[in-house]
C-alpha cells in the first residue's frame, strides 16, 4: 500500500463546537488531548521523515526508529503549537467529546505498565511530553479521579462491564474499583442499593461457577484441544451439539407421547420372547413396544368410553383432561422439529457471524492469528510450528504463482482432468444407487420366496443396511484416490471437493431409501403396519452405521497404527480425518430425523450411540492418531458443517416428514392415525371437534382455515421474506462500499498530513535560518 505522497491539499473539516465555553474542568482534558496530539504528530513526523528519506535515496537502508520519549530536537515549539491547533485536533475542547472519549473509547486509559513508567509506557496518549509543567504524579492522580468520576456516573452493570473490558493492569483496576468507596466521592452512596447489587452479583457469580463446572466433558475437551488443536476439537464439539439437539427432541417426545402411552398401555399382543437379535434388527419382541409407531393408540387415552364400540351410548361422563394421543403425537413431532430448526438456525447464524472473513489479508492473518495458544504438548507445538511454516511457504508460492500465468494448454488439461474426475465421482455414485435399488428388489423377492424361518428372515433384513454402510465406508477412499489423481492446487479446495462428493453420495442413497419407504414398492410391501416396518428399517440402519463406525475406527486407526509401527517401522501415525468423521455423524443424525415419526424412541438410541462414540473416538484418538498436517480453518469448517447439517440434512428430513404427513395414507390397523386419509386430517378433525364442542373458540377455527391453510397468504409471506432478505443484502453491499471509500480516505489523510507537516517544518526552518 505504500505510494508516494500526493500533492493535493485536502481541506480539513470545520471544528466542533468552538462556541462552547471552556470550564476549568475542561482545561485538564484540553492539556491531555494536546499531549496526545503532539505525540501523535511527532511520531508521524518521524514517519514522514522516513518516507522522505526513502524517496530521496533508494539504496540507503531505513533509519532505525529513534527512542521514544526523546524530544525531537529539530521541531520548534512554535510549529508544534501550530500543529496542536489544527482544526481537526481541537475536538478535545468539547466537553461532550472528551467525556465520550473517556467513556466509550478506552484508548486513553490503556496503560500497561502503569503510568509511572515513562520510557516504556504504553500509549502515546499517556506519555508525558515536555510541554507539560505539572509533575507526573499529579497528572496521574487527576486522570484517575476523572476516570473514577466517569465510572461512577455509569450504571453498576455498565461500570463492571467497563472495568472488565478496560485493558488496564489488575492492580490499577482494583484501585479504580476501590475508589468510589474511598474518599473520592464526598458522600458514600446509600447502603441498601449497594448491598442489593452486591448480593445479586454474588448470586450471579455462584450460578456462573455452577454452570461452568456442570459442563460435561470439559476436561476431556481440554485434553483433546491441548494435544491436537482446535481442528480436531471441532469434531467433538459437533458431536456435543448433536447430542444436545437429540436431547431436546427426545425430551419432548418422551414427556408428551411415550410416558403417557406407557401409563395407559394399549391392548397387549402375545409377547414374543426376548432374544439378543432384537438389539440388532429391532424386530421380534421390539415390534410391539413403545419403540415403534404401531404401538400407539388412536384414541383419547383417559376417556373410559374409548374402548366401547362406536355409536353406542356411553353413560360415563367425559374426563376432565382428555388426552388425545394422535394429536399429541402429531404436535410433539412437529414441535420437536420446530425446536431443532430454531436451534440449528441459531447455531448457523452464530457461527456464520464468527467465521465470515475476507480473502485479503490472508498472510497477515496467518502470521498473527494462526498460533493456537491452547496447544501444550511439546510434540504438538513442534507440529504446529511445522504446519505454520508450510502454510506460509504455500501462501508465498501461491502469491508468486498468481502472478505467473499458466500456459493455456496446462489450464485446459487441468480443467479436463477435473471434469473427468467429477464425472467419475457422480457416475460412481449413481451406479451405486442403481445397484442398491436392484439389490434391494432382489433381496425382497428372495425374502418372499424364502421359508418362514424367523431367524433367517431377520438376518436377511440386515443385509441391506450392511451393504449401504459398506458403500458409505468404501466410496470415500475411492474419492481420495480421485483427488490424488486430480491434484488440486490448494488444500482447502481439496477438502471442500471431498466433502461435496461424499455428501452427494450420501444424499443420493438416502433419497433412494426414502423413495422406497414411501412408495412401499420394495420394503414393507407385505406388512400390514408399514410404519412400524419403516421404523424397524431405520433402527437397523442406525445400528449398522454405529457398528461400521466402530469397525472403521478399529481398522482405520488402531490396526493401521500397528501396521505403520511394527511392519513399516515409521514414526508416523494415522491422521484423524475430520471431514469424513463429521459427515458420518451427519448421516447418522439424518437417519434419526427421518425416523422420528415412525420410531419415537429413535432419538434415545441416537443419544446412546453418540455417547459411546465420544468415548471410543477419544480413546482411539489419544492412543493412535497424530494431529492433522493439512491446514484447517476451524471456524470456517465448523460453519460449513453446521450449515450442511441444517440445509441438506435437516431440510431433507423435514421435507420427507412433511410429505409423509400431508400425502401418505397411514395404515388401517395400527398406529395413532389408523383409518384416516392422511395424518394431516387428524389435525383438521380436531379443529372441527373443537369448534363443535366449544362455540366460543370459533375464531381459532377461522384462523386455522383462513390463515394457516390459505395458500395465498403463505405466498405473500414468502414474498415478504424474500424482500427482507434482498433488502438486507443491499444494505450490506452498500456498507461494504462505504468501508472501501473510508479506507481510501484514511490513506489519503495520512499522506496529506505528512505533506503539510513537512511543509510547516520547512517553513519554520527557513525562518530560523534567516533569523
Amino acid at each position: 500500500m505504500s505510494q508516494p505522497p500526493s500533492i493535493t491539499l485536502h481541506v480539513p473539516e470545520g471544528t466542533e463546537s468552538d462556541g462552547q465555553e471552556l470550564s476549568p474542568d475542561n482545561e485538564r482534558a484540553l492539556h491531555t488531548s494536546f499531549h496526545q496530539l503532539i505525540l501523535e504528530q511527532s511520531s508521524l513526523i518521524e514517519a514522514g521523515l522516513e518516507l522522505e528519506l526513502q524517496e530521496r535515496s533508494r539504496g540507503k537502508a531505513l533509519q532505525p526508529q529513534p527512542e521514544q520519549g526523546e524530544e525531537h530536537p529539530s521541531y520548534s515549539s512554535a510549529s508544534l503549537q501550530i500543529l496542536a491547533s489544527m482544526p481537526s485536533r481541537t475536538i478535545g475542547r468539547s466537553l461532550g467529546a472528551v467525556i465520550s472519549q473517556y467513556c466509550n473509547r478506552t484508548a486513553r486509559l490503556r496503560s500497561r505498565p502503569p503510568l509511572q513508567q515513562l520510557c516504556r509506557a504504553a500509549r502515546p496518549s499517556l506519555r508525558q511530553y515536555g510541554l507539560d509543567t505539572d509533575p507526573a504524579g499529579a497528572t496521574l492522580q487527576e486522570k484517575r479521579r476523572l476516570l473514577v468520576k466517569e465510572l461512577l456516573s455509569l450504571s453498576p452493570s455498565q461500570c463492571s462491564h467497563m472495568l472488565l473490558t478496560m485493558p488496564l493492569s489488575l492492580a490499577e483496576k482494583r484501585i479504580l474499583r476501590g475508589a468510589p468507596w474511598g474518599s473520592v466521592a464526598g458522600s458514600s452512596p446509600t447502603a441498601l442499593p449497594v448491598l442489593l447489587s452486591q448480593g445479586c452479583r454474588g448470586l450471579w457469580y455462584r450460578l456462573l461457577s455452577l454452570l461452568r463446572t456442570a459442563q460435561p466433558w470439559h476436561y476431556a475437551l481440554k485434553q483433546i484441544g491441548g494435544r491436537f488443536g482446535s481442528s480436531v476439537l471441532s469434531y467433538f464439539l459437533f458431536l456435543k451439539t448433536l447430542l444436545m439437539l437429540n436431547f431436546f427432541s427426545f425430551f419432548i417426545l418422551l414427556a408428551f407421547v411415550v410416558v403417557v402411552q406407557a401409563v395407559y398401555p394399549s391392548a397387549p399382543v402375545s409377547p414374543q420372547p426376548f432374544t439378543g437379535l432384537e438389539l440388532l434388527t429391532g424386530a421380534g419382541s421390539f415390534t410391539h413396544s413403545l419403540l415403534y409407531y404401531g404401538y400407539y393408540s388412536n384414541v383419547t387415552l383417559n376417556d373410559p368410553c374409548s374402548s366401547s364400540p362406536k355409536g353406542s351410548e356411553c353413560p360415563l361422563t367425559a374426563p376432565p383432561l382428555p388426552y388425545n394421543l394422535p394429536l399429541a403425537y402429531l404436535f410433539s413431532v412437529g414441535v420437536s422439529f420446530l425446536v431443532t430448526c430454531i436451534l440449528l438456525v441459531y447455531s448457523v447464524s452464530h457461527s456464520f457471524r464468527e467465521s465470515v472473513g475476507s480473502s485479503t489479508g490472508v498472510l497477515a492473518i496467518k502470521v498473527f492469528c494462526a498460533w493456537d495458544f491452547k496447544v501444550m504438548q511439546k510434540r504438538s507445538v513442534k507440529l504446529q510450528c511445522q504446519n505454520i511454516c508450510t502454510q506460509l511457504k504455500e501462501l508465498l508460492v501461491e502469491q508468486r504463482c498468481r502472478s505467473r500465468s499458466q500456459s493455456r494448454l496446462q489450464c485446459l488439461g487441468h480443467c479436463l482432468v477435473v471434469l473427468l474426475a467429477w464425472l467419475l465421482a457422480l457416475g460412481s455414485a449413481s451406479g451405486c444407487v442403481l445397484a442398491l435399488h436392484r439389490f434391494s428388489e432382489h433381496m425382497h423377492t428372495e425374502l418372499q420366496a424364502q421359508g418362514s424361518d424367523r431367524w433367517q428372515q431377520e438376518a436377511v433384513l440386515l443385509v441391506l443396511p450392511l451393504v449401504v454402510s459398506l458403500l458409505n465406508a468404501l466410496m470415500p477412499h475411492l474419492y481420495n484416490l480421485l483427488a490424488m489423481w486430480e491434484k488440486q492446487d490448494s488444500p482447502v479446495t481439496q477438502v471442500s471437493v471431498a466433502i461435496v462428493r461424499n455428501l452427494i453420495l450420501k444424499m443420493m442413497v438416502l433419497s433412494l431409501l426414502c423413495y422406497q419407504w414411501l412408495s412401499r414398492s420394495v420394503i414393507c410391501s407385505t406388512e400390514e403396519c408399514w410404519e412400524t416396518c419403516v421404523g424397524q428399517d431405520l433402527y437397523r440402519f442406525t445400528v449398522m452405521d454405529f457398528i461400521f463406525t466402530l469397525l472403521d475406527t478399529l481398522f482405520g486407526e488402531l490396526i493401521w497404527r500397528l501396521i505403520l509401527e511394527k511392519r513399516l517401522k515409521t514414526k508416523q501415525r494415522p491422521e484423524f480425518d475430520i471431514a469424513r468423521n463429521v459427515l458420518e455423524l451427519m448421516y447418522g443424525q439424518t437417519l434419526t430425523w427421518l425416523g422420528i415419526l415412525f420410531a419415537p424412541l429413535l432419538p434415545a438410541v441416537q443419544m446412546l450411540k453418540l455417547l459411546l462414540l465420544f468415548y471410543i473416538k477419544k480413546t482411539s484418538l489419544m492412543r493412535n492418531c497424530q494431529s492433522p498436517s493439512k491446514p484447517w480453518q476451524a471456524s470456517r469448517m465448523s460453519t460449513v458443517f453446521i450449515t450442511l447439517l441444517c440445509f441438506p440434512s435437516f431440510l431433507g428430513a423435514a421435507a420427507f416428514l412433511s410429505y409423509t404427513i400431508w400425502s401418505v395414507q397411514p395404515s388401517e390397523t395400527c398406529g395413532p392415525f389408523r383409518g384416516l386419509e392422511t395424518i394431516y386430517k387428524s389435525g383438521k378433525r380436531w379443529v372441527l371437534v373443537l369448534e363443535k364442542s366449544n362455540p366460543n373458540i370459533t375464531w381459532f377455527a377461522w384462523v386455522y382455515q383462513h390463515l394457516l391453510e390459505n395458500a395465498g397468504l403463505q405466498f405473500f409471506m414468502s414474498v415478504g421474506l424474500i424482500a427482507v432478505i434482498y433488502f438486507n443484502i443491499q444494505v450490506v453491499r452498500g456498507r461494504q462500499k462505504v468501508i472501501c471509500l473510508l479506507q481510501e480516505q484514511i490513506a489519503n489523510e495520512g499522506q496529506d498530513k505528512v505533506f503539510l507537516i513537512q511543509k510547516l517544518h520547512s517553513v519554520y526552518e527557513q525562518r530560523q535560518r534567516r533569523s
Partner: protein
Amino acid sequence: MGNKQTIFTQEQLDAYQDCTFFTRKEILRLFYRYRDLAPQLVPLDYSASPAVTLPYELIGSMPELKDNPFRQRIAEVFSEHGDGNMTLDDFLDMFSVLSEMAPRDLKAYYAFKIYDYNNDDYICKSDLEKTVNKLTRNELTPEEVSLVCEKVIYEADVDNDGKLSLADFQHMIVRAPDFLRYLVSLITTTEQEKTLPQRTNI
C-alpha cells in the same frame, strides 16, 4: 458454596471477581497453581496483600506456557515492570485475558503488545521478523521471512506509515475468525488439573 477459605478477605475475592472473568472457585484454583510454582515464596495468607513476585523462570515453566514460543513476551506484557516477574495480580490478569470469556478487543490489545517486541506501540518490520521466526522456529530462509513481513505490512497497514499501529492490528483481527478461538489458554478445569504437570510428552 460457603466454603471457608482463609487466603483472601471477602473484599479481595469480590474485587478479583469484578476485575477478572473468573469465579471464586477459579480464582482460588489459580492461586493454588501460582503457589505450586514456589510454595516457599508464596504465603497462604494474602489478606495483607504481601508483595510477592515470582521470577520469570518459574512462570515460564508452567505446562501451559512451557512450550509456547511467545511465553517470554506474554510474561513481559503482563508483568508489572515489563521484566517477566509476576505478582499474583499479574498472574490472574494474564489468565483472565487468555480465558474464553475475554472479549475480542481486549485480546487484540494484548496480542498487539505481545507481538510488539520493542514496546514502541507499533509493530514494525523487525518485530514482525522476530514473530515469524518464533512461529516457524527459524525454518524459513531470511529472504522468505523478509518477503512475508513486507507482504504483511502491505496487507494490514491502513494509514500508510510502514508499520502496524493498534488500529491497523484491530482492523485486521476483525477479519480473522479464528482469533478468539486461538488466543485462549485453558487453565481452570477440574481436580484432574493437578495431575497435568506430571504427564510426560508423547
